[in-house]
Each structure stands twice: as C-alpha cells, then as structure tokens.
C-alpha cells in the first residue's frame, strides 16, 4: 500500500521521484539500524524479579570502577609527602585565579565547562572517599617500586562485568588487570572498596583485600616485607589524574575544547583542562597511572608529562603542574600532539573578569540542556526571552490549584502547559495526535485519586469527553478558546477520579455532534496505552 496521500496533497513529478529515492534510502537505513541494534549476547540480560518486575542488568558504570582505581593511584602519590599549607591559592572575586587558553589547535573551541557547584546539582556526582597507601617508605623513590592502596568510596559498588568475578570476605567482587596494576573492588554496606596493587601479583592483592579493614586499612601481615603506610588522604584530592577527572575538590573548574561543531559528539579529539587548588607535591599524582611519563618543566615550574593507554580508553597525552597561584593544573589531550598540548599550556592566561561566567553560561551543562529542550533540534532552540505566555484558565480540583497556560515562541510554535500541584506538563503544537486533531497530554497525576488530561484543537473538535472504565459515564472536558500571537485554538482540560492505574479514554466530537475519534492514554511512568 502506498503511504502517499495524493488526495491530501497532490505531488509534483520531482517530488514523486524524490519520495521514491527517499524510500530506497529509508529502507536501507532501517535495515542497517536494525542490524546495529543487535546487542552482544552478554551485554544485556533480562532478569525477572520475584515481584513481577523485570529489569535488565547492564554493565555497571565503567567510570566508577576506573575512577576508583584512578583516585587510589593518584592518592598514593598525592598523599605521599607532607602537604605544604603555606601556599593557599589566592582568591579573586570569590574564585581561584583560573587560567584559560589563549591558543588552541586550529578549529578548536570550548564546548563544555563545569564547576564543582554545577556537578553537585547532579545526583550522580562522584562521591568522596578515603585512601591509604602502603609501600616502602624508606626508598628514595617510593613510586619506583611496588605499592598497594586501599580505598573506601562512599558509593554503592557497581560491577563492571569487565573483570574476573571474585569473592572478597564473602562478598562478590571483581578483579581486573591494567598493565602492571592489579585491582579488586567490592561492596560493603553501601560503600565501595578498592585495593590496587602496582607491580604486585594479583594473588597478593586479593590476599590483602581479604584482610582490608573499614577505615580503610590493610593488614601489614598480608603485605610484602617492609611495607607500611606511606600516605593517606581524601579521594577528592586526586582529581585531575591523567585519564580523567573523577572526583571533585571544591572550587574545581573543568573545561573542554574540541573541533568546532563537534560538541560532545567527538570522543577522539578534545582537550580537557582541570584546575583546582592543590599542593606542589600533587604534581606527581599524574605519574602512577601513566603508560609512560617523565618529569619536566612548564611555565617555569615542575611538571609531569606523559601519556595513558588505559584499555577501553583512547590514547591520551597529559601535562600536570602547579601554578604559583596554588592551582593544580592538568591538561589532557586526545587526538593532539604533545607539541600542541605544551603550546596550549605555555599560552594559558589568567581569566579575565566575567570570562569564566561567560563560558559557563554558554557551555555549561544547563545551557546544553536548554538547547536540547528546544523544539526539534539544537539549532532551533528558542531563547527564553522570545517566549510569551498567557493564562488560559485556572481552577481548583480536589484541593489542588491548577493553571492552564498557553505559550508562543518566536518560531511560531504554540504550546500549552498545565501547572498543577507543583508540577508542569506541557505539549507542543507541532503535530496532530488525535482524537480528531487534538494534541493530547499524558495522564497528569497530581494527587492520590485524581488525574488530569489536557489538550488543544485548532478547530476540528467541538467538544470532548474523558472517562475510564470505572466510570458510569464520561465527563465533559472543559473548553477554553485561546488567541495568542496571531493563532487561535481551543484548549481542553478534564479530570477523572482514579483509584488505581488505568486507561483514560478521550473522545472527540465535531460541531454536528458526531463522534470523531477516541484515544486512550496510559498512565505516565507506568504505561500501557492500549487501543
């Protein structure tokens, strides 16, 4: 059957030809996508739960496991030497003296800027923790030999499924190897523990983990002769290790730069600069995890220059140093040469007044969300100031006040919003969704026993009713004519008492009283539309 609607919109010959070409391409694209959607057999498993729920076990958050290792390794170095607290970072206008690039590889531009405060708005923000490092404290270079570290992270353990399943003190854990680093993680009472051994056999790492204490600590009896505590400290002090920033210290600024237009879509080419208050000894934090590293000098001070080749991650170059202002700086590059990275570092300059704020406004996560919440694409986003609105109706239902608001954007799109019980539901005026020409909201749950549905029609629907199976008869939806920004339509709203999850049916009628169409709406979040 032809999908074309000649009686609706007659087509020209070029359009008919174009649609034929489109159909060929579309079917090819569909076939390719269907093939790509086939997941690896071990990637996803469906597990039925006893209470009738099913869930998929996906690989755990890989970043968590890797981050756990990173912070541990970094903390080893960072806590090794005594801290120099006599060099507090100067603060200007309430924030450290951040640096920003005055030179970038050709075509690069900022695309994401984050601060501690922004990250803390996300529930998924990485947690802090404590680390204790064991090694040979009397060696001239304790990092030149073997070390073993235990960490306790205040987050629920997540299995990555990338390692070998093991049992630690009767609890499930996971052992992984990366180069000459062996690490094991497991969970205890909502916390994640990690034991990381460098240049040590996995058997010894597992034995040490079995004897780990909650502080955290390791039992020296399980460690090589001469091993003792050489450092301890908070996990957040390790932010900025070469692979990635994983845990936030206060007053951290993270800025990403990449090829113009790539946004967050280019994982192979970008530069990340992490700045936070730190101590001079923290510079060497960058060394333990590196595939190769050397000490050097940048901007007149001690630096570590190296690269990482962590399995599962792209190759990265990095430079870490400390500014005289007290900021510990890390510049990480993917897809850039060492010369480019060093030039960027050499040409960093003090951020000017308002420059950080400007970057955050333009490239912060909130600003990215604002773009993606636009109508149909990032390029069609609607600036907030271009939206006008008017209240269509207000009322009170079951003790809950509500307001139906029409909005109009500069693009010409008109929307309808229902504000009720502290919630806002919206629908956009860009498509017909039935019944008739009505654009329907989902069920809006605003109380224990009441639900609302609202809708808009550009004129075809003269009246509408709302009901569910438990009701003796349908209820009329209230109608409100709306004129906004040169457009006119009718807004509808209806309420039904609902004692349990159910289907709500909306029926539309034309001006002559004839039934146009029915639509059934499932409960939001718990589903099930059903004809």
């Amino acid at each position, binding site marked *: 059957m032809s999908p074309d609607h000649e009686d609706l919109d007659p087509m020209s010959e070029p359009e008919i030809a174009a649609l034929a070409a*489109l159909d060929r391409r579309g079917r090819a694209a569909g076939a390719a996508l269907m093939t*790509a959607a086939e997941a690896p057999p071990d990637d996803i498993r469906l597990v039925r739960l006893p209470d*009738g729920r099913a*869930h998929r076990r996906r690989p755990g958050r890989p*970043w968590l496991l890797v981050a756990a290792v990173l912070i541990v390794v970094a903390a080893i170095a960072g806590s090794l030497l005594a801290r120099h607290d006599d060099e507090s970072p100067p603060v200007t206008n309430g924030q450290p003296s951040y640096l920003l690039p005055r030179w970038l590889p050709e075509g690069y531009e900022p695309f994401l800027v984050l601060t501690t405060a922004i990250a803390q708005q996300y529930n998924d923000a990485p947690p802090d923790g404590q680390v204790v490092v064991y090694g040979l404290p009397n060696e001239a270079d304790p990092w030149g030999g073997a070390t073993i570290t235990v960490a306790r992270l205040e987050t629920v353990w997540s299995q990555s499924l990338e390692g070998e399943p093991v049992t630690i003190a009767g609890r499930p854990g996971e052992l992984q190897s990366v180069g000459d680093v062996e690490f094991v993680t497991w969970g205890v009472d909502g916390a994640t523990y990690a034991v990381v051994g460098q240049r040590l056999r996995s058997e010894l790492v597992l034995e040490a983990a079995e004897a780990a204490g909650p502080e955290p600590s390791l039992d020296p009896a399980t460690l090589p002769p001469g091993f003792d505590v050489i450092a301890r400290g908070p996990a957040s002090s390790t932010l900025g290790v070469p*692979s990635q920033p994983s845990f936030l210290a206060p007053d951290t600024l993270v800025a990403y730069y990449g090829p113009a237009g790539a946004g*967050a879509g280019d994982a192979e080419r970008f530069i990340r600069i992490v700045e936070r208050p730190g101590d001079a000894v923290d510079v060497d934090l960058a060394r333990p995890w590196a595939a190769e590293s050397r000490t050097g000098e940048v901007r007149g001070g001690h630096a570590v220059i190296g690269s990482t080749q962590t399995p599962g991650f792209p190759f990265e170059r990095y430079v870490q140093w400390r500014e005289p202002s007290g900021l510990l700086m890390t510049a990480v590059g993917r897809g850039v040469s060492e010369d480019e990275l060093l030039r960027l570092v050499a040409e960093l300059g003090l951020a000017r007044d308002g420059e950080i704020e400007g970057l955050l406004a333009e490239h912060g996560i909130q600003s990215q969300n604002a*773009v993606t919440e636009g109508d149909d694409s990032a390029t069609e986003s609607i600036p907030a100031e271009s939206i006008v609105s008017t209240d269509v109706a207000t009322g009170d239902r079951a003790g809950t006040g509500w307001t139906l608001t029409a909005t109009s954007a500069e693009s010409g799109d008109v929307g309808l919003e229902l504000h009720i019980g502290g919630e806002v539901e919206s629908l956009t005026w860009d498509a017909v969704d*039935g019944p008739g020409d009505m654009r329907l909201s989902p069920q809006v749950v605003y109380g224990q026993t009441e639900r609302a549905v609202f809708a808009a029609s550009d004129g075809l629907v003269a009246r509408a009713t709302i009901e569910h199976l438990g009701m003796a008869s349908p209820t009329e939806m209230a109608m409100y004519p709306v004129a906004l920004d040169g457009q006119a339509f009718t807004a509808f709203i209806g309420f039904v008492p609902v004692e349990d999850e159910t289907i709500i049916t909306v029926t539309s009628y034309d001006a002559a009283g004839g039934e146009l169409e029915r639509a059934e709406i499932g409960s939001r979040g718990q589903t099930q539309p059903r004809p």
Partner: protein
Amino acid sequence: MDAAGSAALGPPGAGGTSVAPGSHTPADFDAFATRERRPLVAFAWTLTGDRGVAEDLVQEALEAAWQRWGEVSGYDRPGAWARRVVANRAAGRGRRAGRERRAYGRWLGGRADEAEPEMPDGHFWAEVRKLPERQAQAVALFYLEDLPIADIAVVLGCAEGTVKAHLHRGRLRLAHALGLVDAQDGAER
C-alpha cells in the same frame, strides 16, 4: 479505536508470533522479549538518537509488559503494544537525556562517549527526528520494519488515514530536508 482493537495489537512485520494469545508463562515472556528486543531498540534509537537511552526505554517497555504479561500476552500482537509504549515514552525524552548523559559522561571520564555506538546513517535519522513527533514515529516504523499502514495505525493508535497523512507529509519534509527534491520545485507543504 474501540476496545476490541486490543486484539489486533502486534506487529505483523515482526516475524510473526510464537506466543499463543492468552498464554502467559515466563517462558512465553522470554520468547517475546528475545524476539522483540532488537526491533524495539532500533525503533527507540530512531526516535531518540541515543542507543543508551533507547535501551533504557525498551527496558521500561519490557518491564511494563512483564508486569502486565497476563493481559499483554493475550493480544494478537503484543509487540505493537510494546512499540506504542516506546513511542510514548520516547516523546521529548531522547535528545535531552542523550546529550546530558554524553556531556556528563565525558566530564566523568570519557568512557560514556565510547560506550555510545555510532548510529548507522545517523544523518538520515537525525532528519527524521526533526519531523513532528507523530510523523517521525510513523516514518520510523515505515522504514525500520516496513510496516504496512494498517499496522502502523495499530501501533500509533490512530486511524489509517491519519497514518497516511503523517507518512505523506513526513516523507515530503524529509525529502526536502535531505535535498532529494529539486529546489526549484521544492515548495514546502
């Protein structure tokens, strides 16, 4: 659509059904989930542009199906029911969730970036997603599973005529957006 329409739920293009209507054993559900997962993920992927978000949506749909398996398994085409759940839940959710996850994932470490596989012919599907929501859903089902009009109508819960209108206008928009229509002739509809 009347209540009797529920018996028609199910995608004829999904390779038929090996699950007898009305049977609702765990094994039946496993067969259903195994058979439907891939087309559901593909469908959700087209609507959201993000594989991870798509998998989450499909997971939710399958979870909902399991919760109501006694009812859903009674449909002739339970797969259509699941597709409608995916379509409803994908609305307005994909782009934001995907972009946010990638951006945040990058900050966390970059592993999330690599975890997001490239979408085959991503430009084509990106243009599909720029269509009005119902047009995009109809077009995705049409190209992805080659579903007939009547079956798309079952999935979307609307009349066949409405589906034809969505497909006609959506495909025309798409053809223009992809530059397949001569600019001299390309009056927007």
